[in-house]
């Protein structure tokens, strides 16, 4: 077994998924199969191979002269969306989103 029931429960907790016991069993089996398949990556020699987090920054063909095109100057820009955003919220009381109490005394 690549993954145990306990691990599935741990992951579900990390991911905030309230799984039913049947779901835990089902995902346990499925994830086990998938992780078994993913194990083929262990065959590859990755010594001296840089991990690629972002395609463009790996310099794969981009001729962009700016070393950091993803950055911009830190200047204030207008952002007038608060009302529209709050209008779509499940429970809003401007300017807040209301949620169950976090701190209890």
């Amino acid at each position, binding site marked *: 077994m690549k*993954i145990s029931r306990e*691990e*599935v429960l*741990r*992951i*579900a907790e*990390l*991911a*905030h*998924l*309230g*799984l*039913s016991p049947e*779901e835990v069993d089902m*995902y346990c089996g*499925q*994830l086990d*199969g*998938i*992780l078994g*398949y*993913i194990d*083929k*990556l*262990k065959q*590859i020699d*990755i010594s001296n*191979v*840089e*991990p*690629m*987090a*972002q*395609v*463009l920054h*790996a310099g*794969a*063909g*981009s*001729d*962009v002269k*700016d070393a950091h*095109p*993803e*950055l*911009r100057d830190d200047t204030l820009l207008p952002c007038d*969306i608060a009302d*529209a*955003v709050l*209008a*779509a*919220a*499940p*429970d809003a009381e401007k300017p807040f*989103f209301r*949620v*169950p*109490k*976090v701190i209890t005394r």
Partner: protein
Amino acid sequence: MSAAAPWTVESVRAALLAKKISARELATEFYGRIERRNPELNAYLTFSPERAYAQADRIDLSVARGENLPPLAGVPMAIKDVISTRGVRTTCASKILENYVPAYDATAVERLERAGAVLLGKTNCDEFAMGGSNENSAYGPVHNPVALDRVPGGSSGGSAAAVAAGLAVAALGTDTGGSIRQPASFCGVPGLMPTYGRVSRYGLVAFASSLDKIGPLAENVADAAAIMSVIAGHDENDSTSAAIAVPDYASETRRPVQGLRIGVPEDYFAEGIDAEVKEKVESGIELLERLGCKRIPLHMPHTDFATAVYYVLATAEASSNLARYDGVRYGLRVPGATLTEMYRNTRENGFGAEVKRRIMLGTYVLSSGYYDAYYLRAQSVRTLVARDFAGAFKKADVIVTPTAPTAAFGLGEKIADPLQMYLADIYTVTGSLAGVPGISVPCGKNRTGLPIGMQIFGPHFAEGRVLQVARAFEEAGGFGL
């Protein structure tokens, strides 16, 4: 105007200018078709007639005034439901966003509308773009218009089905691991995945941020090129969008292909490929050779590992991107006694099985103790896959492969075994990881009449060359091989 000939960007424009039809009449015609065929296909989830007709009326006024028409004037289009449309419900085919109405347009949508496109509605897809069959939608599967008991492919199944069935002249889809190309292949239409960063992702509901792309599905290659000209280009709102000039795709697409080197990697024609797919794609390559292209045999050694890499990286990124669906700011909220309970209840009820599975896989590979062995390792293998492409493009101008190992499979056939479904992506995920552009073009049908697709990859930002080869193939009759 022949009723049988499908509308194209060009024929719409010509008909509007010749006053043979108004934009409003054309939109009405398409809504009529949708009313007749959508119930059996389930390609569309939401309609936007107010917006569509307002746009159509604007176009008609321009025509009446003799003004210059924008490039996509009056063209009825559909938008995949993971792309934000202001004022139009955007569900991502999930229950967790069942009633979500965005307050803004995706940049690609804004550009299409500024170019005159008439946006008919939002198309069905796999939930949060996760799937290869459009069976993971919370709103029912999409049926392949070519054969109703078959999947249209996924995740952009609704967009592909809409175009194939004549329910839109063209559509936007998204591609993370094959989600434009594979349904395009299964439904028998061209579908282009642009280079990563070529089209802004602003407004695209994020699945895997280093892999997501927006791209066109159309009835012909020239229309795909026309749409690309409109949606491509740098966007300040997307820090990953490339600050690289957009070429004139229309003229690049019309260039002759004589002398182009067609790389054919043996790794895509080995075990697992259906014999009829192999036969048709081989014929396709031979057609390109007859057009004056030179076949270059290639070996891309990490092809076989790409699917495993993809399902580590894409799920890891997804687990992070989907953490925002917690019932706090938008979408579904299922109450709980505590905040954490609210999160768990909301996500348990709001997400479908495939989404949960991928979130869990992604959480696992990122978790303490497993991060190095899975996530970091997969990122290194991604570098090797990208190097395979870089090396190949030193010897060849484009790379040609099958799009998928099979034609459209049956609804329900693969849904029980997620790994089997993932393995259907083997030919598309490679290019996704490398960030290169790739198109799927129809390449004949199998003996039961199901479409087969041929995929053409190009180097980064060489969409023009990819479209050029696709167009030459189309003009030489390749689609009907």
